[in-house]
């Protein structure tokens, strides 16, 4: 049962991600990315991290992606590389190099993983994740309290920065 769901979700995940990248229309990319996030959330649930899964959906799908969507609608540049004539030096050449590089990287990672013996995950009792939520809360606000506060500051700064940047200069 788990195995099947895993492979299905994995398939969805990979395919949709590939499409996100392969897509010429940013609108579609956004939606495909949402799909991949949903699949990812499914995997999280598989891994007994339902809380993380929900956060993933709420924050990523519910907020970040909407932001992207807005920008896409706002700028309304559906097709890829609209404007900005590609210059010789940054034309197709380096992009191919980039593709090669990432392929190499993937192979490297694969090799690295194949090296180590494949360890099966410890069998999980589908115990109440609520308890986990509790644990997470405790850990987050005890051990990671500082990081938490720091992040809040970060968010604030980002907010201000975004507003300042995107605001039309009043002249």
């Amino acid at each position, binding site marked *: 049962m788990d195995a099947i769901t895993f492979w299905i979700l994995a398939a969805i995940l990979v395919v949709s991600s590939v499409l996100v990248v392969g897509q010429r229309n940013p609108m579609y990319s956004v939606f495909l990315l949402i799909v991949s996030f949903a699949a990812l959330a499914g995997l999280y649930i598989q891994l007994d991290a339902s809380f993380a899964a929900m956060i993933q959906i709420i924050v990523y799908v519910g907020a970040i992606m909407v932001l992207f969507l807005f920008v896409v609608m706002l700028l309304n540049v559906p097709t890829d590389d609209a404007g900005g004539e590609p210059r010789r*030096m*940054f034309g197709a050449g*380096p*992009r191919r*190099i*980039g593709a090669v590089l990432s392929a190499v*990287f993937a192979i490297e990672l694969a*090799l*690295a993983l194949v*090296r180590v013996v494949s360890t099966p995950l410890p069998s999980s009792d589908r115990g109440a994740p609520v308890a986990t939520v509790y644990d997470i809360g405790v850990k987050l606000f005890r051990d990671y309290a500082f990081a938490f506060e720091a992040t809040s500051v970060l968010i604030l700064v980002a907010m201000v920065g975004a507003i300042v940047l995107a605001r039309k200069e009043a002249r």
Partner: protein
Amino acid sequence: MSLLLIPLLPLLGFLVNATLGRKLTKTASGTIAVAAIGASFGVAVMVVWSLLHQAPIGGVRAIDQVVFSWIQSGPLSIPLEFRVDPLSSVMILVITGIGSLIHLYSTDYMHDETDGEYARYFSYLNLFAAFMLVLVLGASFPIMFVGWEGVGLCSYLLVGFWFTKQSAADAGKKAFVVNRVGDWGFILGMAAIFATFHTLDFQQVAFRASQLPIETSVGIVTGITLLLFLGATGKSAQIPLYVWLPDAMEGPTPVSALIHAATMVTAGVYMIGRNAVLFSHAPLTLNVVAVIGCLTALMAGTIGLVQNDIKRVLAYSTVSQLGYMFLAMGVGAFAGGIFHLYTHAFFKALLFLGSGAVIHALHGEQDMRRMGGLRKELPITFWTFLVGTLAIAGVPLFSGFFSKDEILGRTFASGHTVLWAIGVATAFLTATYMFRLLYLTFFGERRAAAADAHGAPAHGDDHGRGAALSEAGTAESKGHLHDAPMAMAVALVVLAVGAVFAGYVGVPETLGGGNRLEHYLAPSFVAPTIAADANGGIAVAPPVPEAPTAAEGESAGTEWMLMGVSVLAAFGGIGLASLIWFRNPRIADTMAARFGVLYRTLLGKYYVDEIYDAIIVQPIKRVSTFFLWRGVDAGLIDGTVNSVGFAVRGSSAVLRRLQTGSVRAYAMSLFVGVIVIVGYFLWR
């Protein structure tokens, strides 16, 4: 009572006035300043009181306070430590007491300034007080040096207070630069002391010095003391470094009174007193000190005789009085020197403030040739001034008499007959030029118009309005002049009282006084029999012989004789002065004509400034222009800097190619790095 408070209070005053002075009204900033110094006077009094009621420990009476450990490196350990002993107790009383009076005086005197300037003035004044107190309270050389430099700075700031006036700015610069020479000596001295005694604490130094034999020939102690004395000459305007003091008169008159008469310039004297033990171990230096002091006294006296600027006359008299003090130090009459310092503080401050009142009344007129006949118009000023004059002239029963006589007596006793003779001569001169000043200023008729005919320059004391207002002054000078206003009057009167009675703490035995001040001060000038050593422990020293107190070896008779002589000198001087400038002023001009060369030499202050300029300033200027500036700075340093710049520019011209500006290119390079690293870990 915390010693720290004493310098801290004025410092606070400074901070307040310096930070929000521009916002404050004159009344406010003035009040703050006066309150600050006044409070610290109160504290000082309490401290001294408790000191007086303290049982001497091993002959030493002192209150110590370590604020915190300031410098701590290897063998060198300098706590920020304050110490009050009899010597410094006298000093702090003088500084805070007279300081307060002068602050008070200034509130009226500076009243024509704008609020901001007013606050600036008082902040400087407070800062000065703070540093001066640090100087005298410091328990070790470095602390003293902090104060030493601090007062130098304040002197610079205050002399150049009206910095928009070229002469004032220059005077400030001059004061500072000349002092640097002295400071150089002081620093070297400090270094030598540390090298020799491995400590910088006064008591320690005194204690360890007392272990050494008295140097008959030139030795390390002599070297040290000479260096220190160089510092002293700088601060206290002695030959060869006295030249800055007369010019310092460009500053506001109260400043001259506080810094250039009562306190700062006496720092040198204090410093020698503070290191009495050290100096008394170097007889050679003592002689040098005595001679220098004596010569300075005479020289300044002679110059003072012919000056026409009221403040300059006072300045030179200050120099010569300081000479007296050094003379005293030189002949080992440390107590005497401090005694004179103390009385001098009163009457010289009084005289300066008096002259200030006159200048104030005449709207910045400083030239005595344009004064005269002010007796009736400025009664308070006149009477107080008169008291001051009598005191400085050494007329019996006035404070100056006792201290001066003390010095002369001790000089004679110590066998320096020549110096004694010069001293007497100087006393004569002092009386003369002081009464000349008195007559020219307060007696006879107003000569403003006449002087205008001479077209004598008017030294504007009031910033900006200088010349113009002095004209105005002369214009309305025929009309009624206003006497010193309230605050100024109070200060004058109080100081006058001081000038009369200050001397009575040190009436010599012969007059049945039983020289109390001297006995009180004596412990400060001998090595402590028990000195707390660096690490707070106790080191027992061999008991040193009791300091030479009053008139040993000389009979009461000789002392009466000496006194008679100096009194004669004083009255002789007064007589001569009245003969020339009171009876028929004509004589002055005729004499000036007859001894033209001498007169011009004196008027030109022996051309010392010119000589210095020729043999020191100009060469230095040339060297720095052609070698240091053109050669080293422009050629070497700038050359290096520029070449570095060019190198960078050249290399960046090449490296720029990497800076494509394409985000992707950067990301790619970064990513290559990632791949390489991962690869390394794979194939390792």
